[in-house]
């Protein structure tokens, strides 16, 4: 077997080891490389930044155990961003597991807030908890909150929550923030809240799902999107709030570069093999 054939049939464990080193090194020994901001992220940030102080936004927390590491840091920054701007937030989740990660993100964001920032549960934010029924559940919630749920995640009756006084449908919200992760549920927010009530929407999805939502962005139905860990890192960078996503984005740099080098090498070896007429 020629050297080219050997290289083309390299043991996959060597590739795994190389990728592991490429991903682990920047996390264990942080290296900051320059980074530019994607158009979609900038659009989502500009939109979030334009939400007026004192308004109320509805926030779907759809990150699960698998997607929280990449989207969680960005979700924390989004909550921080809204609360420091004086925007009130109504959280809910359409997944049982996602419900818990939403609580985690809220608690992390509250821990990062500058002293004196108003962030009282029930006044500045409320978490409605898990809403069953998928898209139909979202439709039900935003058309009649009290008909859909009777108490929030912490068991407080809806009518005892000051933030929800006079709020019973989506017409009271200024924006929709949909952190759907890999749920693929962003269109629920567009179809059930944004379009019927005329409320702009932005949010986050995993990197691989961003192309699914690009038609909505080009149609103006979605105000940009934070994609994956890079989106989270860009949000941290734009908010000047360094967090775990910036470190992970550097790992993505090294992993992505290794992937590109391997694909180039694979093709170079393949063409040499073909030129030599080897099988």
């Amino acid at each position: 077997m020629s050297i080219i054939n050997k290289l083309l049939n390299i043991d996959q464990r060597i590739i795994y080891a190389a990728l592991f080193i490429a991903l682990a090194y920047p996390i264990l020994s942080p290296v900051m490389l320059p980074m530019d901001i994607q158009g979609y992220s900038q659009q989502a940030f500009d939109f979030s930044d334009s939400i007026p102080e004192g308004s109320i936004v509805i926030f779907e927390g759809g990150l699960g155990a698998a997607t929280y590491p990449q989207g969680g840091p960005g979700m924390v920054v989004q909550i921080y961003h809204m609360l420091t701007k004086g925007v009130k937030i109504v959280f809910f989740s359409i997944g049982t597991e996602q419900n818990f990660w939403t609580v985690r993100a809220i608690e992390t964001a509250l821990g990062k807030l500058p002293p004196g920032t108003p962030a009282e549960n029930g006044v500045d934010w409320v978490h409605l908890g898990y809403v069953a029924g998928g898209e139909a559940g979202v439709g039900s919630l935003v058309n009649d909150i009290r008909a859909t749920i009777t108490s929030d995640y912490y068991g407080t009756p809806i009518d005892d929550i000051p933030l929800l006084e006079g709020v019973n449908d989506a017409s009271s919200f200024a924006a929709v923030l949909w952190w759907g992760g890999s749920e693929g549920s962003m269109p629920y927010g567009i179809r059930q809240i944004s379009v019927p009530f005329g409320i702009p929407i932005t949010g986050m999805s995993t990197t691989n799902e961003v192309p699914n939502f690009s038609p909505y962005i080009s149609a103006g139905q979605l105000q940009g999107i934070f994609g994956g860990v890079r989106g989270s890192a860009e949000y941290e960078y734009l908010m000047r709030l360094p967090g775990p996503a910036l470190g992970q984005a550097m790992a993505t740099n090294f992993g992505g570069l290794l992937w590109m080098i391997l694909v180039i090498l694979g093709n170079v070896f393949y063409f040499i093999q073909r030129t030599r007429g080897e099988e």
Partner: protein
Amino acid sequence: MILEHFFPMPDVVTGFNITMRSFTTIVSAAALMLGVIFLTISHARTISQQKSGWYYSIFYMISLLITVGLGLLSVRNENFLWIYDNMTSPTGAALYSLTAFYITSAAYRVFRARNWNAAVLLITGFVVLAMLIPIGGILLPPVVPLGEWFRSYPSSAGFRGMIMGTSLGTMGLGVRVFIGRQKEHLGVREERRGVE
């Protein structure tokens, strides 16, 4: 409900639709519980009949008992949340991360310009990935406008077609279910219906 999306409807219709949507949330929550019950019955059967891999079902049973037990005490219980923080989160993240290893190894072996179609896929994939990695735009500046063009035009157009296709397909399926032409969801298989 479909008409409500396109035309203003009287309050009585809107009110009825709201009630129907509330029903959906209740039925969905009940369906979740039914799913857990049937899954548990299936695992219990696997253990009792000692089918292949029956010992994995024991792990399911233990996990279910612990999670349900702690959850019934309180979903805000520290022990219950400990499971999420220290077991569900690392396991979920690890499973998701494994795809990076498989994809990299597969890309090295398979992602080759074997013909013109494969070459187009290779170049497009390369440009989009170079655009997506944070340093890509700094190392290779042209990949940013090129990648964003790919994402905003050919990719958007493809996905838009897919969205329309699946929406029409879903509506068609809904109509077939309504008029009784589609019975697979009731457990009636096509070949059996042929016999009947």
